[in-house]
């Protein structure tokens, strides 16, 4: 077939298709000024100046909420419409339930989560001096379970852990993310930063390629956000459950046609610390809703 013939064939095809399907989607950018207030009371900072360590990379940072569709955004304004809250209720039961050989529950040591866990999520992951390592909230939960309660460690990516993470996160909702990147955590932070800018997989893409260079643009049907973690855990409409940060990282790395890192690994912990620090100044928003 010569090119002229091809062009006319394609032209006819295209016109026929345009009449039935409608012309190809022309995407609109997000409304960057839109405001998120949860339950009519908790104001969420979804747009603010980037932290100093992002100088030269980003001027402003945005919650992923900004880039979601109207319906998804609206559902997050009222906890009765937020399916993530069901898991918070489940975790509240676990919080109060005695488990393990020591006859203790989380509440035995920490009392009401509303008080003892307020502000915790905003600073994690962080350096634990006694342990001499950077820890995520999930690692702390398992540490309490195994060393203080004499109970089994929960699977880091399992439903129980993600729900407990959501309960703890909720107590910091509306507070600014404020993760420390200096001092003893610095080397882990540097390691995470290195990962963030490394192009992996057969598609040779880095986190920055999608979430720093191209946010608010579409890659096929996906509207790219800045890949911030302030909204985690997120209830995803796609899999109808709460998802933790490492599970999301795994999906993104897999999508570069790469061998992923393991959820719960030190690699992903370093990345979690680094990505959290990119959101310093945004509000803790989880549990949130994403597609």
């Amino acid at each position, binding site marked *: *077939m010569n*090119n002229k013939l*091809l*062009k006319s*064939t*394609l032209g006819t*095809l*295209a016109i*026929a*298709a*345009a009449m039935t*399907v409608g*012309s*190809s*989607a022309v*995407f609109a950018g997000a409304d960057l000024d839109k405001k998120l207030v949860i339950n009519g009371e908790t104001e969420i900072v979804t747009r603010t100046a980037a932290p100093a360590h992002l100088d030269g990379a980003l001027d402003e940072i945005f919650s992923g909420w900004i880039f979601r569709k109207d319906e998804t955004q609206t559902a997050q304004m009222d906890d009765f419409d937020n399916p993530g809250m069901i898991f918070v209720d489940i975790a509240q039961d676990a919080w109060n339930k005695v488990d393990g050989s020591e006859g203790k529950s989380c509440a035995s040591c920490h009392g009401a989560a509303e008080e003892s866990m307020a502000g915790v999520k905003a600073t994690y992951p962080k350096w634990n001096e006694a342990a001499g390592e950077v820890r995520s909230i999930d690692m702390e939960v398992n540490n309490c379970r195994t060393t203080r309660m004499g109970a089994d460690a929960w699977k880091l990516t399992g439903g129980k852990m993600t729900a407990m993470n959501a309960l703890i996160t909720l107590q910091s909702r509306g507070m600014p993310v404020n993760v420390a990147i200096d001092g003893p955590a610095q080397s882990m932070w540097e390691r995470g930063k290195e990962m963030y800018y*490394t*192009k*992996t*997989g*057969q*598609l*040779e*893409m880095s986190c920055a*390629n999608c979430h720093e*260079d*191209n946010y608010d*643009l*579409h*890659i*096929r*049907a996906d509207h790219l956000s800045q890949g911030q973690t302030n909204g985690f855990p997120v209830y995803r409409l796609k899999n109808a459950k709460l998802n933790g940060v490492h599970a999301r990282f*795994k999906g993104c*790395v*897999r*999508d*570069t*046609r*790469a*061998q*992923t890192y393991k959820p719960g690994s030190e690699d992903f912990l370093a990345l979690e610390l680094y990505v959290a620090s990119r959101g310093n100044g945004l509000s803790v928003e989880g549990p949130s809703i994403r597609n």
Partner: protein
Amino acid sequence: MKPAILGMAALFAATTALSAAEIAPGDVVFEDGAVAASITGVVGDPVNGRMVVASKKHGNCIACHANDEMPDVAFQGEIGPNLAGVADRYSEAQIRGILVNADVTFEDSFMPSFYRVDGYIRPGKRYTGKAADDTFAPLLAAQEIEDVLAYLMTLK
């Protein structure tokens, strides 16, 4: 990591029936980003090329590029330039070069290399998240590159 992948590439080449004139991924010769000679010696099929450009399972070029000639394809990306008129902007040899390895033309390009098998960091087995194994192959087969090229040359 690199030697293992090179080994895989060799295995790939050995177990795949190459047409006499087919040039293996590592052997493509560039001149100023352009690749003058066909990498298969077989004239490209623009109809198949169009399918490869549009299909998520094949080139998925539309993930990043809008293309005015494909109003029938939904959700065209916004990352790279619109492909409309691309044959007016580049020669056939230049576009072949961009398809084989866009990094040669555009430094540090976000566009993946569609006909290359080595030099990757943590290469995976397609979209499984597992490490690459002996099924590792370039993103597009040599003839698919020529087919896509034939299609793009119609975009004047």
